[in-house]
């Protein structure tokens, strides 16, 4: 038999339920509509500065979304890449890989390329690749990743709050965390650090 609650205790229990419910609802833990986290539905478009649609160039995989009209002037020889609310520019000769639809793709920083999204579960990489060149990966931020550990210095980039790796020069990579977007960008370099810096400087909110 369930004992009857003392009136004061029943008040406490009710209040506790209400407080708990309000507290949970305040953080999105209730039954209300949820908000997708950044990167959860990462869309990506590529816009080239040439008159040739990106979807017909050999350097751009057919998995990318259709070309859209650029709202930002893209310098000649560059292509505009949009991912999860951010946009940036890379050379138009670079392939752009959407990893969510290409999960076996090897993310390798020894070849010029842009990778969007997180690595797949079993990427088809040669076993022991070594070497660096200019390349970029933008992916959802995992606070436990080595990249996140490196990017510790707060900065502002084109109005975006970011954290950057203070030792980028010696690590041969610009590692940038975008905490508000829940993203991290890794831009590696070897012989052309200026190109990496140029790519980094192009990051901004997608227009």
């Amino acid at each position, binding site marked *: 038999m369930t004992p009857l609650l003392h009136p*004061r205790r029943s*008040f*406490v229990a009710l*209040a*506790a339920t209400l*407080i*708990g*419910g309000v*507290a*949970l609802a*305040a*953080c*999105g*833990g209730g039954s209300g509509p949820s908000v997708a986290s950044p990167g959860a539905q990462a869309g990506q478009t590529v816009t080239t500065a040439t008159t040739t649609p990106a979807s017909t160039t050999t350097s751009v995989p057919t998995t990318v979304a259709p070309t859209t009209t650029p709202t930002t002037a893209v310098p000649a020889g560059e292509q505009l890449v949009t991912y999860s609310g951010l946009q940036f520019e890379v050379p138009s000769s670079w392939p752009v890989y959407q990893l969510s639809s290409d999960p076996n793709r*090897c*993310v*390798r*920083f*020894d070849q010029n390329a842009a990778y969007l999204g997180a*690595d*797949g*579960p*079993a*990427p*088809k*990489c*040669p*076993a*022991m*690749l*070594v*070497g*660096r060149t200019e390349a970029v*990966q933008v992916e959802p931020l*995992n*606070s*436990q*990743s*080595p*990249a996140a*550990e*490196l990017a510790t210095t707060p900065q502002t980039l084109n109005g975006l709050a970011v954290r950057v790796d203070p*030792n980028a020069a*010696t*690590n*041969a*990579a610009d590692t940038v965390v975008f905490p508000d977007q829940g993203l991290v960008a*890794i831009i*590696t370099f*070897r012989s052309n650090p200026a190109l990496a810096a140029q790519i980094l400087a192009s990051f901004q909110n997608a227009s």
Partner: protein
Amino acid sequence: MLRSVLHRSVRRRAVLGLGAVAVVALAACVPVTAPPPPPPPPGVYTGLGFDTCSAPSTSTMSAWLASPYRSIGVYIGGENAACLGGNLTRSWVSTVTNAGWKLAPLYVGLQAPCNTEFNTMSTNPTTAFFQGLGAAQTATGEAGGLGLGAGTPIYLDMESYSCGGYASAGTQAVMWFVDGWITELHQLSYVAGYYSSAATGIADQVTNIETGSFFHPPDDIWFAHWNGVSTTTPDQYVPNSFWSNDQRLHQYLGSSQVPGYAESFGGVSLNIDLDYDTGQLAG
């Protein structure tokens, strides 16, 4: 004291209780950030292993428990790492090591001055020494972030080079760089590992010992000698008496020797290099 105060007022206790409920409820909002359990302590592993460029997912690692391998080489960073970790995180390390995997952490720092296709070290001995020292600091920082603390071996990946013989400026720069690596890893209480070609980087370490030179030798060596022989001793490039106390890993099959070499376990295929280990590993 606290108990007597609470007894004074049931109402106050009720208020306290409500506060506690609110705190607990709010705490439930906070993303789960509790650190994963630490990996088992590092130690000697004897057996087969493999290397991949990019850390496979934990589910792939679970599937590969069906393999004869129990160690995996993982790149934790460095200026010449072509694969930057993949699925590698602190929780990945915790999950796979507690599932029974041993890890060979690899750091791909600056390479020999004559290997100009890479980011290269200085030929100035002092500069090279401090570059090696700095590599150790970065590597231990990244290892620590992955939950791999003091006592963990970290293997410096020095790709094969041919800079003109042991006395050449290029080879001496490598020796100084590796000496800086070892010196700083010891200062930070890590185990100084060294991966290289048996015929070049490892052979130069052998020469260093045989000639009584002053460079610190690595604690453990990981030699690439793709002879298909899954043992660590003997090897034609390493005297039996050197690194003889469970201090060797042998990469006996390389993917560049057999392009596209892959194996499949649990329905998951991976391109791998093959190792036989009798040396220090993490986890």
